[in-house]
């Protein structure tokens, strides 16, 4: 019970970490009920006029290669792209019949946290023990990365809340 709901949350977080907030997504999330709940969860939705500035934040926080910031497990654990986590995620996705289409992933490596959250959302509805194992192997790594307190504003909040989410799903398992 509740797995579908959590799967939806994981998908949303995956989306927010995968790409810059766009007008369409912002409008969808600005539904009064939803935005109130998001606010209660710690995420205040920005104004449309802030999107350009937020895209620059997104670059600095998640893309800028010089900061070593991309939320990629292989980098976080091993210092290079395409380490063992990438191989493992690919195998898990294969077994689950999930296609990791680079176009949809916007070029994100398969072990980017956004992709891993999305994959978790598929697993949790299918096989809880697999999802638990997946959390252990492919989500928990991100906690120190998400918990750093130097990210500000919208994406700072998203990171903190995603960290809470990963903790919550981990503890509940």
């Amino acid at each position, binding site marked *: 019970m509740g797995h579908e709901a959590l799967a939806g949350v994981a998908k949303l977080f995956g*989306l927010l970490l995968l790409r810059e907030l766009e007008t*369409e997504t912002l409008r969808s999330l600005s539904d009064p009920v939803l935005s109130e709940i998001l606010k209660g969860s710690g995420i205040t939705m920005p104004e449309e006029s802030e999107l350009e500035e937020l895209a620059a934040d997104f670059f600095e926080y998640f893309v800028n290669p010089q900061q070593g910031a991309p939320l990629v497990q292989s980098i976080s654990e091993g210092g290079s792209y395409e380490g063992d986590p990438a191989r493992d995620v690919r195998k898990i996705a294969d077994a689950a019949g999930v296609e*990791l289409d680079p176009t949809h992933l916007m070029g994100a490596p398969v072990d980017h946290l*956004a992709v891993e959250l999305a994959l978790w959302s598929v697993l949790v509805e299918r096989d809880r023990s697999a999802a638990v194992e997946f959390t252990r192997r492919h989500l928990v790594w991100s906690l120190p990365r998400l918990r750093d307190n130097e990210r500000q504003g919208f994406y700072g909040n998203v990171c903190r809340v995603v960290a809470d989410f990963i903790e919550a799903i981990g503890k509940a398992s």
Partner: protein
Amino acid sequence: MSSPKKPESPIPEATSAPKKTSRRQFLKLGSALAAAAAAGTLSGCVGQGSTKPLSKADNLAVWRSGTGQPYKVGEIKMPGVCDLPGPFKKTRFPDPDKYKNTEQVHGLCQLCSSICGITGHVKDGRIIKVEGNTNDPNSRGKLCARGQSALNHQYHPERLLHPIRRVGERGEGKWKRISWDEALTELAERLGKVRDSGDHEEFAFHQGRNRSKDAVSNFLRAFGTNTQLNHRGLCSAARRAANLTYLFESDWDLGDYENSKYVLNFGSNMFEAHQGHIPGAVRLQRGRFNNGAKLVTFDVRMSNTAGNSDEFFMPYPGTDGAIALAMAHTIIKEKLYNAEFMATWSNATVDEIWEQVEPYTPEWAGQLSTVPAADITRIAREFAAAAPRATTMCNRGSSAHVNGYFNDRAIGLLNVLVGSVGKPGGWCWMFTGGYDNKRFKPPKGAPKPKTKSLLADPPEFILANRWNTMRVGEIVYWYLAQERAKLQVYMTYNLDSPMTWPEMNVTKNVFLDEKKINFHVCINPFFNETASFADMVLPWTTYMERWDVDARGAYNLKPYLSMRRPMIKPLGEARDVRDFFPDLARRIGGGMEEWYPEDQTVEQYMTEFTKDVPYDADKYDSPMDFLEKVGAYEDPDQAKYYEPYLVPLTEKQLAGSTVDPETQIITKDGKGIGILQGGTAVVGFKTPSRKLEVKSEFVARVARNQDVTDLVASANSKGSNRPEHHKPYNYEVSPWPIYMQIEEHLGLDSDQLVMTSFKWNVHNHGRTANLKWCSEIVHSNPAWLHPDTAKRFELEDGDWIEIIGYRSKSVDRCLPSLNLGSGEIQDKLQIPVVITKGIHPGAIAISNSLGHFEYSNVAQAKKDAKLSGQSAGMNPTGYRDPDWERNMWWQDDSNGDRKKWQRNTGNGWAQNHVLPISPDYISGQQAFNSTVVRIRKLS
């Protein structure tokens, strides 16, 4: 389907963060998301997968197959990570399973211009090892340290994987990610406007290194611009011009070192860095070990090549030509020359040459160069005695000087005198600098446009574009600064000019000026210094992710052809120009699209390109199949390019020809085809005289802007008149190999020295400091000073100096129109010194390659990204590279305080702060090694 037993929680207890969002809140959020219409637009980035539930067996299999075998070694699980001894030392080395069941994909390295053959071992979609391809006829399976660091490059954590667009001021460092669609739409619009303006040449493509020549040319030609810029002037222009003066046919000498008995090296560092580095070094060592070849080196600095030579002399900078001319003097005076060869193949007689070289005595050269006259004489004798299996070898050490063209002309003369030209073990060349492009042609591309580009063919430089295109790269930013040209769109490609071009501040200022460069798009696999001054940066593929047909000067003296092919899919959103130029051309339209068939993939294009490559049909399905399995093709039946001038003309060739009774030159339809020698009609040299051009009327005439149509017709190979826009720039240039004194080297003050530059064996000029294995070996580059010099300045090892660089008096006198002057350049450089006898007392040497201010934390020697000075978005936890954290010991924590600086820490110093723009008016060569500097000790 799910496990009955509650799995253990993977989350460690008691992480403390205030006001955490609870599971209940997440459930509520989930329900709201599901209920809201928003759910439709918020689908995730992966699909739902198969509907089949995962069986327990599936599940277990997944986890088992997903565990880190076989790459897991101790705590470190990464391919490309060197496990050094220490707390995490390897416990299972070598891993017996590591290379089992790998797919082997052949390709070509591109970490320097030698393009050695490589083989990637690919497993689970990842390259786990790159080694030399033993089938490559040029590099023969050998790689240097750079090539061995391929995985550092490929999987670097700081690779740029997405197109980005600046959102702040240019150079401010504020960016956002954009999609390829957005990037190409904007680019097409801007390039379309350039075409509409009619000033096509205001779109410049500036390559640092381009091995996809066909793809780039097709795009630029289809667009209609000739402003394709390169770094030839900063590399080898003088050497090429000197070779072309003698040969016309080729700009590149390929000493037959493997079969040689004597190699006379003027400042080439073949063992560390050279355009033919590994292929040349492999053969040179074989020549030494197998034939007992003697290697004698003249170099201002003790390079690894110099140090590994049989004899090494340290001449004063820029005097290589004087030494060579004194050797020529000895060879003629003592009648050690090859009289028969000279009589047959030199266009000047020995007496005429003697008239030129008589004043150049060994004593005179000894005084200038500080090399003992007796040694110059002795080595001249030895060289002549070893001929014809004797060859000179030279490169930037002799040619990257204000007088570089004449230095290399003088060095070339030695081979002519002893008759080793084109002989086994002698001074050789090839009819092509790459694959045989008469035999293998890329699919038809757009024709060359007629537009005139001032940047591509600057009028002051006599020989830069007379035979081949040798762009005078170092004046590009100066021309823009002087408003002699402007650019609407500037596309940089694999270019690191802020680090490698002289006068970094000139480059930076031009980059920042939107009036001079209206829009700058940078194509690079990393966010380098060039990218930091761009408006848009496009993530480029690595050389392990793209296609090319390629080859370099073949040291086997027969042409070969190699293929670079993708070993894996590009990471992230990286794309190659072969992939996105067609899309961009179609978006620009206006006829450009015609050159890009809609339905042709890059692989299909390559198939067409290589369709004529012979293959053994018993073993392979097609040329592509052969190239895939072998990697390279060399014609086993082709003879080595020895003595090509002796090839007889056929009756068919001779039919309808005439012979000039005076010169014996054979002409057909107004064009030279050969020469009559001893009654035999042979091809001869492809020069105006059909002989080696010791005296070059061509050079003297083009320098004066006189018509050389008759000479070009007689050569019937290369060469052209200078175009109309060169007309105001006329010079008197000697047709002979002479010594040209560098004016500014005379009468130096006691605190002045000549600054020279060099490359390391683990770095190229500006693109390898991001490789952690290479940077661990070399990351710091104090200036080299001789102990006598250090004593004069009261310097000790590790003391700091300030360097002021001066522009060249010679350059200013020869090229007044550039308005360079001969004064101090703006920047100064503060650098520590290392005191060593391995440098001439009159010189100071600083390496290039280091001192980056972008290009990854590795290149900046920042173990802790917090020190990068870019606070926005700083992530203190950052990425974790256990290898980097454990082994990165050279971070400089002195924070600019010289007293606290520890030796061998930091990321080095960029020499180009004090390196003046200094082009040779003849060839356009940047004089990297002639700079007069003033130094002072810092307290």
